[in-house]
Every structure is written in structure tokens, then in C-alpha cells.
């Protein structure tokens, strides 16, 4: 199969859906001529024209609301927020409006909106351009939250998100943009709410999201050399969560390590721990549930500090080793 990058997969999903469905359009800052801050929409302006590739001034709240309003009357907008850090400016429209309009109107409204945004650190862009807020939006009924890890997942999940009749927060990772993988040329959907077991194993379950799936896979290779056989579950969709796959994996291995980049405290890892600790998997646990996640700091500028602020492959290896040796 053809290899393309994660970034190209996102672009291809948008492009093919726009070709297929005239109600789909893209709105965001510098998504036109500039091609988006990360070049995700590069070339789309030439293809679709300014009527369907809407460049906006710096108006995160306004453009998110605009996308929501268009969705409310039957369009299928994709809004881009240039950095996830700036969803702090957009959250009123996303959380109070897009997420709630349907319920608030007694089920008589549909908001088929996708809000795409890149999260994560590692680019040296410091405190205001590196955050991961997925758990904020997981906390909001009415939203779906998707975090693709591979180019294949990115395309299939984005197509499914665009076709979904609900507002979807689609979180990309800057450091994944240039990673490559096999991606079919044709359109395909990966259903929202379906986890993927990225590696089968029997000694230990790692539940990881976004770039931490890749780092966990690398860690697993190392751990395998020591005879530690890691299973890696990638929820892919954080809301709704595929609890079943997670619970089954934990039942099988009896040990679980949760890994994400966002700050540990108040993060999605807590939700995962909660889901496991209240499930039937609890009885199968033979060690505490460990979480490895972002440190309790804003993302610093200095490269060494920045690396230290979020889990790296070595940290995962170390934590997994620790877990393997733990017993209740």
C-alpha cells in the first residue's frame, strides 16, 4: 500500500470529503494561501477556492461559532484552531453552543462540526503553543473527542468525524505530522468509539494516546528484549470511549500503565484509571494502576526541559519495568 504522512492523510481526508460532499468546507486562520501553520491545508485553496476554504482573521471564538452556526443549518464545516492552546479562546462556542444545541433544543438540532487542532509539545514553541487539553473536551457531553496516532487512523477517523452528525474535536499531534504509514487511496471510515490494539502482549497493558502510542511501541520493543511482553491499547476515540477493549486487555494482563502527554493531574489518565478501577477488571489487577503523563509544569522553552516535561521512551520503559515488579 501507498505510504503517506499523517499530515497528508489529514489533508487527503478533508480533500476527498470536500469533493464528495459540497456541504463540507474548511474555516480557520491562514488555512488558505499560507496552507495552515503546519501546511496541512496546503493546495486546498487552489482546488476549492475561497468560497470553501475560508481564511479568517484571528478570531478563535468567532470562527468556532461561525462553524457551529453553519452546521446548525445543514453545512458540515471543519474548523481549524491553529494550536490547541487557543481552544481556550474558542471553548465558549464549542462547549456551551456546539455541544449543547441539540440537547437544549430537545433533540431538534444537528451540529455536524469538526474542530481540528494540533496539540502537544516538542517543537520548542514553549508555554503558549504546546498544550494538550483533550480531557477538557472529554468532560463535555455532546462532544466527541478523537486523537489519531497513525496516518491510517488519521484519515479514517477524520472521514468518520466529518460524516458524524455530532461536533467532534479532532486532535492532531505536531510531531506526528511528518510520520509515515500505509494509507489507502480510497475513502474509508474508522468508526468513532472503537479502540485499536496497536500491539498484542500478555504481561502488561499500556493504554496510550496520540504520540505516546508511538513512544510506547518503541518502549515495547526494548522491553521485549527483557522478555516483557506489552500490549498497547490506543483508544483513538476518547469520547465515547471503548471501555470494553480496555477492560478486556486489563483482565488479560492484570497490569496497566496509562501514558499520555497532557499534564497528569486532572488529565484523561484519571478517567482511564477511574473506568478501570470501577470495572470488572478491578478484580484482575495484580498491581496498582500507574499513570505516566506530563509533569506539573507549563511546557518550557529550553529543549532539555521541554523533553523532560512529557514522557519519553525511556520513561515509559522505566515505568513499565517498575510496574512489572509491583505486586499487591
Amino acid at each position, binding site marked *: 500500500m501507498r505510504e503517506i504522512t499523517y499530515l497528508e492523510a489529514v489533508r487527503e481526508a478533508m480533500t476527498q470529503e470536500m469533493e464528495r460532499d459540497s456541504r463540507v468546507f474548511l474555516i480557520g486562520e491562514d488555512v488558505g494561501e499560507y496552507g495552515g501553520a503546519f501546511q496541512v491545508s496546503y493546495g486546498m485553496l487552489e482546488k476549492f477556492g475561497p468560497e470553501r476554504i475560508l481564511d479568517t*482573521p484571528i478570531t478563535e471564538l*468567532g*470562527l468556532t461559532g461561525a462553524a457551529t452556526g453553519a452546521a446548525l443549518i445543514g453545512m458540515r464545516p471543519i474548523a481549524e484552531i491553529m494550536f490547541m492552546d487557543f481552544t481556550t479562546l474558542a471553548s465558549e462556542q464549542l462547549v456551551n*453552543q456546539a455541544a449543547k444545541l441539540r440537547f*437544549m*433544543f430537545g*433533540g431538534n438540532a444537528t451540529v455536524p462540526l469538526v474542530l481540528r487542532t494540533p496539540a502537544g509539545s516538542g517543537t520548542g514553541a514553549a508555554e503558549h503553543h504546546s498544550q494538550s487539553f483533550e480531557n477538557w473536551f472529554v468532560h463535555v457531553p*455532546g462532544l466527541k473527542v478523537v486523537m489519531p496516532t497513525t496516518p491510517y487512523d488519521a484519515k479514517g477517523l477524520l472521514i468518520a468525524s466529518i460524516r458524524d452528525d455530532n461536533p467532534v474535536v479532532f486532535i492532531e499531534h505536531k510531531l506526528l505530522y511528518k510520520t509515515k504509514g500505509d494509507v489507502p487511496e480510497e475513502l474509508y471510515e474508522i468508526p468513532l468509539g472503537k479502540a485499536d490494539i496497536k500491539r498484542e502482549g500478555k504481561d502488561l497493558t499500556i493504554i496510550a494516546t496520540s504520540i505516546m502510542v508511538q513512544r510506547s511501541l518503541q518502549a515495547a520493543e526494548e522491553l521485549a528484549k527483557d522478555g516483557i511482553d506489552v500490549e498497547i491499547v490506543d483508544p483513538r476515540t476518547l469520547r465515547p470511549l471503548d471501555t470494553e477493549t480496555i477492560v478486556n486487555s486489563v483482565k488479560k494482563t492484570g497490569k496497566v500503565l496509562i501514558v499520555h502527554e497532557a499534564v497528569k493531574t486532572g488529565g484523561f489518565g484519571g478517567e482511564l484509571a477511574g473506568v478501570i478501577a470501577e470495572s470488572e477488571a478491578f478484580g484482575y489487577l495484580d498491581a496498582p494502576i500507574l499513570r505516566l503523563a506530563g509533569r506539573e509544569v507549563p511546557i518550557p522553552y529550553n529543549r532539555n526541559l521541554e523533553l523532560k516535561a512529557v514522557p519519553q521512551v525511556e520513561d515509559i520503559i522505566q515505568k513499565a519495568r517498575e510496574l512489572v515488579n509491583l505486586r499487591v
Partner: protein
Amino acid sequence: MTLTKEKAEQYLLQMYQIRAFEEQAEKSYMAGKIHGTMHLSIGQEASAVGSISTLEPTDFIIGHHRGHGLCIAKGADLNLMMAEFYGKENGYCRGRGGSMHIADVDGGNLGANGVVGGGIPLAVGVGIGLKMQAENKVLLAFFGDGAASTGAFHESMILAVLYQVPVVFICENNQYAMSFSANDWTTSKKIAAHGEIYGMPGSTSTDGNDLLEVQKAVEAAVKRAREGGGPSLIVNDTYRWRGHSKSDRNRYRTKEEIEKWKKKDPILRFQKQCIGEKLLSEKEAEKIKDQGYADIESARLFAEASPEPDVAALEEGVYAP
């Protein structure tokens, strides 16, 4: 638009329905039948009816927290509306939304909004969608003077002008945002001037208690929007007679001020105009008023007899299938 007898009757009836709805809302609340808060638009009826009378039935409105009058002017079914106000299952929103969220998407009412300024960005998007759908529909987007201070307003004006959306933004300036006086606040009186600078030629303010003046201004803006001439901003100057909501103790204004504005009652004013121009007789007007109150009384009966939502269905309607 020339005022015909038929139109005169319709507008007067709608204004009386609004007045009656709000009075009933207050009574129901006082009687403990309603839980929560509400925002009454008594005194602002001409702004709602004058503005919305310029629309075709297939056009849209989007409202704000003080939105009962807008719903009625858009032709809401009074029973469903009152049932929603009572939080009943057969209300417009199945009792989920209540006073602050009444909507009828199919009927072109894209909803009231509990967030001040919350509807303004949505309006831009509706405008973008309407333009793409190319059916020559327009949207009236309502908000208060308080909302004009929000960042949402500013960003939305810029986007609306940029995309030349078929939207008329209508600021119902009732002189206060809760206790915050439009006069204290240096920008309020200049909202229309802002409109010009954003790039909406013809932005203007009206005597919002004069139905025909409101209608004339909005009509021109709607026409322009429908013909592809882009958005406008119109400020209807008016006044709310009641407190902001049930928590209001009216400390920030004087009784005299309220009395002064009551003398400018938009309903009586329009009624007098109609009688003066011989479109209606005193008696006809009286009958219309009675009709308005009777309509609301029957809506009340409908609402009170309506079933409560089933609590087992709580989680329905959060997600589309």
C-alpha cells in the same frame, strides 16, 4: 412596506401576545409553577415585531436570553412555547431548554441563548451557510446592548463583513445590561457608529419603541442582505420595564425613569397610530388585545395540562445517532 389593515391587526396582536405572555410568565413564576429564572421583554415589543415583520417565513432569526417576544414575532406556536416555559415534554425543546433556550429550528427560530453574545458568532455561521446554500434567505440576529461589549461581538462583526453574510444584526438597546447602564458605558451609544467602521454602511439606530420606524430600518437592511449587499447593524433603542430577572432589586435606576419610559409604551403607541390612520377602530383594537390575552390563557391551559418529561429519557438527545 405599506401598513394594511391586515398587517396592523397582525402586529398589534403579536405585540399583545408578547405582553400577555410575559405577564403570564411572571404570574406563573409568582405562583411557584415555574422554577428557575426568566427575562421579560415587556416594553420592547415593537423591536421584536417591527424587526421580524420584515422576514419571509423561510427566513431565520437567532435570539438572546430575553427572547420570548422574538419567538412570538417569528410565529411560534404559543402552546408549544408556553409548554417549554413550563418545562413540559411537549414544549419546543421537550422541557430541556426552558425560557432561555426556546428554539424551533424548522420554523426558522435558531434559538434563544443563555450566554450573552453567544448567538452572535452562530449568526455569522448561519450567514455563511445561507450564502453557500444560495436560496436568498436572510437571518436577523438579535442581542442586547450588553452583548455589544463582548469579544464575540467584535470578532463576529469582522467576520460578517469579511464574508458579506446575509445577516442583519439587531442590537436591542434597552439601556441596561443588568445594572450596567448604557450611559455609563462609552461605547453603547456608539454601537451603530462601530457598525460603519466595521464596514457595514447604513448601520443606524432607531426609536425602538416605534414599530414602523424599526420596520423601515430593518426592511432596508434585509433587502440589502437578500440582494447580496452584506450585513448591517441596527440598534433599536428601547427599555425593559421589569427588572433584569427575578433576582433584580432595581437599585440602579429610579422609579421616575421607569415611569417615563412606560409613557412610551410601544403597543399603545402603535395602536394609536393605527386608530389615527383609521386602519383600526378603538373597538377593533380592544378586541385584538383581548384576543392576545386569550391566546396566552389557552397556551397556559395547554402547558399546565401537558405532561412532564420522563426522567428515564434524561440522556436522550445529547448525541445524534
